[in-house]
């Protein structure tokens, strides 16, 4: 990793200790505005290795923006994000954050899997090619090996029979399962899900949730933005409620969903359930 040289020169021992600290994902005091609109105003979040966190909250509360900040599809106005021992998008030079090179940011993104609400499968590639593209072009895996691995991954999400189908001929649920396999193919340290079932027909939701559940059971660290409170109850260890650009409440799944402290959380849960 090209940036290690820089990151290994902390100003203090405390910095080095923080960099390699236990949480797999740490979001510290992140602010983000689009023009005049403030979307996130000082968000903090900490996710342990293997933890499954569900982020809930009203639409427009900044949940998706938070996910995009974690893999640097958006850059924060203030604050920082650390994933798997590295500051995302920036390196520390002379005690200040400096933007990383494009190649470096791309490498960091490849270690953070992302599943989009609208699947965003590459429409000119078959399911197999969608999954194998990342390993071949980013990890430089030999094409034959990458295709074998892609076949295995697609079997794991129940699509062994659709390897050579183009996205347009797959159902929404199938497309979303391909997109999960595409993210997993890069062996990410963390998986981010941005409302993975919101664009699906109701009868297609379960097949995707099953795949996510089995991933959770395999010990993958996951951050899931979702509207499915029942699913969150089922799979999440931690639930984070975001409203108005800040974390209103975070804690163990059961206590947040059944016994929230804050009035806003209570109102939100009443409305969605």
């Amino acid at each position: 990793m090209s940036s290690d040289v820089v990151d290994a020169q902390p100003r203090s021992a405390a910095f080095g200790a923080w960099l390699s600290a236990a949480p797999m994902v740490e979001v510290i005091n992140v602010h983000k505005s689009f023009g005049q609109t403030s979307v996130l105003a000082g968000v903090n979040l900490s996710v342990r290795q293997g933890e499954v966190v569900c982020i809930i909250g009203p639409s427009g509360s900044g949940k998706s923006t938070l996910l995009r900040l974690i893999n640097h599809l958006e850059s924060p106005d203030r604050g920082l994000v650390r994933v798997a021992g590295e500051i995302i998008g920036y390196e520390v030079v002379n005690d200040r954050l400096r933007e990383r090179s494009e190649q470096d940011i791309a490498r960091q993104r490849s270690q953070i899997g992302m599943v989009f609400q609208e699947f965003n499968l590459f429409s000119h590639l078959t399911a197999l090619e969608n999954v194998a593209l990342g390993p071949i072009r980013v990890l430089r895996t030999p094409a034959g090996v990458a295709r074998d691995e892609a076949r295995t991954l697609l079997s794991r999400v129940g699509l062994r029979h659709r390897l050579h189908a183009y996205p347009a001929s797959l159902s929404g649920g199938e497309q979303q399962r391909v997109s999960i396999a595409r993210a997993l193919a890069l062996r990410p340290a963390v998986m981010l899900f941005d409302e993975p079932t919101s664009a699906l027909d109701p009868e297609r939701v379960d097949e995707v949730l099953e795949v996510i559940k089995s991933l959770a059971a395999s010990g993958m660290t996951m951050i899931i933005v979702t509207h499915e409170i029942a699913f969150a109850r089922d799979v999440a260890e931690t639930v984070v409620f975001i409203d108005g650009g800040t974390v209103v409440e975070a804690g163990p799944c059961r206590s947040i969903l059944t016994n929230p402290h804050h009035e806003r959380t209570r109102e939100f849960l009443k409305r969605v359930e």
Partner: protein
Amino acid sequence: MSESQLVAAESNVLPRTGHTTEASVAPTYVVPDAVLALADRPLDPRRRIHPGRWITSAVVIALVAWLAVKLGTNPKLGWSAFAQFFASRIMLDGLIVTLELTFVGQLVATVVGVVLAACGESRNPVLTAFARGYVWFFRSVPLIVQILTWYNLAIVFPVLAIGVPFTSLHLQGSTNAIITPFLAAVLALGLHEAAYMAEIVRAGIAAVPRGQLLAASSIGLTRRQTLRRIVLPQTLRVVIPPTGNQLIGLLKACALVSVIGGDELLTTAQRIYAVNYKTIALLLVVSTWYLILTSVLSVGQHYLERWVDRDMRGGNRGEGSSVPSLGLRLRRNLNPLSFGRGEDSEL
């Protein structure tokens, strides 16, 4: 439909009385058996007669027949000259030059156009300004002026040289020897066409959904990889139909090269009729060859589009193939009014 008791909803049939108590008793009515029988009976197979269509058809056919007879029987037209020169050695040589100009020109245009479009997408403001300036310049100056300018380049640059700066290593030659009419034509056609290709590719890039770029970033592709692996392949579907039209336009634009004596079809025809005065017959030879070439390209374009569209067929999004039928394609490209920069309009 054995049971003929169809019940219509209250609201469709009866005006509301305003008495809420009555609304709870749903009134019903019965569709008459005669109506049901009518609905079941097959359609009358006899077609309607359209007298207007028959009359206009007759007029048009008569006009065309009259024109055909006039042309076919006119002794001054020189059908024997047409037959003599249509497939003659000298004409076929001109045909080959026309084809070479078209395909080499399109090759130059495609390469330069894609590079220009990529420059337009760059974050480097100098590159984007260069791309925009190029398109502005080469689209603004008439093609015939560009052909003449390239051909007469020797007036301002009598010697062309290529070499390593600050050393004595170089090759040089007389401009007139290097810029043959053929090269002048290829440069003019190719660089002019490149401006249009750049715009076509730019539109294709703009048509790629933003989600594709987000997904490409999320798996760790760089901007360059994204352009090469995701964006450009997806622009093909959008780019190929207008490119086909451009190619056909370029084929026809080759006739302009006759102003510098480019040895293509029209130049050849001109040289012949300068000697034998069978002007119309030789122009007909040229026209017939253009009709044949344009038709062949249209057919090729149709099958190319079907092939490019393969990943969208059999999709569950409800849309059929976006490729126009072969008939429509032919009609569109052969339409005399669509000469020049073919917009993708339905007739």
